[in-house]
């Protein structure tokens, strides 16, 4: 490493912005698709686990095991099936990590619905479907979204590990910087990944405010 090499060379950023931008787009796709897929799968699985309690413990145990597997190892094991440097190789494991966080969140969220609320809904003549959509799910929103925040932020930071198998979005900047012993791409990568995570986190918080107007009304009352 040459002495006096600054941590950030601003002109590098200016010259390379187009390629950084395409890495950024790739990164966002690989980070967000697993979370969206995870949420779509976790909702029915979570509902099933609440309805049939026996299902819950095995599901959680399996998810715990999945969650403990190092991402790089899972990427590698998938390569023969999905190919080197393919988006799917990164997206599939990240979907499972998202599920591991989201299924318990959905179950806990639905478990947080107070009994008297559920009974009131029944007494008012709500059928099971209407009760689920209009009472249970809205009340579960804060807990589910808390899980979604964790899943989203870790998904965004995990994508970069994919750079080691040739498909890691902004993670490529780390490989590039290391190979050329050059700080700037590494710093740019860390800053962008972290900023992306903070931004996504903020968007979910905003969504939560919009989806649960009663929480704000109660606080200001």
């Amino acid at each position, binding site marked *: *490493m040459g002495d006096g090499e600054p941590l950030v060379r601003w002109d590098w950023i200016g010259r390379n912005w187009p390629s950084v931008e395409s890495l950024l787009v790739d990164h966002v796709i690989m980070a967000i698709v697993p979370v969206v897929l995870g949420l779509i799968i976790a909702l029915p699985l979570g509902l099933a686990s609440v309805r049939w309690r026996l299902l819950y413990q095995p599901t959680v145990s399996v998810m*715990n*095991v999945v969650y*403990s*597997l*190092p*991402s*790089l*190892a*899972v990427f*590698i*094991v998938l*390569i*023969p099936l999905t190919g080197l440097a393919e988006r799917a190789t990164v997206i599939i494991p990240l979907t499972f990590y998202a599920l591991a966080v989201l299924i318990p969140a959905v179950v806990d969220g639905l478990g947080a619905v107070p009994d008297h609320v559920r009974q009131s809904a029944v007494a008012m003549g709500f059928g099971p479907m209407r009760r689920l959509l209009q009472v249970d799910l809205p009340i579960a929103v804060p807990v589910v979204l808390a899980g979604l925040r*964790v899943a989203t*932020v*870790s998904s*965004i*930071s995990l994508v*970069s*590990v994919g*750079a*080691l*198998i040739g498909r*890691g979005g*902004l*993670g490529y*900047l*780390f*490989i590039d*910087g*290391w190979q050329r*012993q050059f*700080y700037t791409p*590494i*710093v740019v*990568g*860390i800053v962008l*990944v*972290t900023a992306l*995570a*903070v931004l996504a*986190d903020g968007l979910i918080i905003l969504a939560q405010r919009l989806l649960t107007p009663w929480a704000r009304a109660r606080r200001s009352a």
Partner: protein
Amino acid sequence: MNWLIDFFGNSANWSGPDGIPARLLEHIEFSVVALAFSMIIAIPLGLLIGHTRRGAVLVVVAANAARALPTLGLVVLIVLLVGVGTTWPVLIPLVALAIPPILVNTYEGIRGVDEDLRDAAYGMGLRGGQVLMKVLVPVALPLILLGLRIAAIQVVATATVAAYVGLGGLGRYIIDGLATKDFPSTIGGAVLVALLALIVQLIFSLLQRVMVSPGVSQRVKVR
């Protein structure tokens, strides 16, 4: 599957400095050292913040940073800054990434202890330090162990990634295998790392059973 047989069936892979036993031991050694350092830093800090309830902001920042910071980027940057060549600089990012889960869970564990329990301990004449060690820590132990488990698994995973910047251990098979297109060794290394992570998970489940007081885990019903 044939790749696995190629890798594990090759007797050359079972001996020497690049053999599976040596690499596994290396991996365990780095992980234990990194975990020990992060425990020395994070547990006292978590106990202090949880007990005095000062500096909680630090915990929130640590918790968020831990999830958002990209591991690979941190590893590459720190090693480039500190200098390449010896093993020890590579351990810095491992320690840095293991601190937040331990710190956050220790803090949450201590803070979450029932207020009545804390009052009762003081009422019985225990002093601050005694309350902490005799009441708060045993009650918070499940969460503290959970933090250690998350950290340990994180360290095993990060040590694998850190093979990219020259750390030994099982990650070598993955990184070197990818570089030389030797897929049997890449996949074999990945399977070994996954197994190690599962064993760590298992060890912590056992620790939880042995260490947590029966009164806290409620395995013994109190009438």
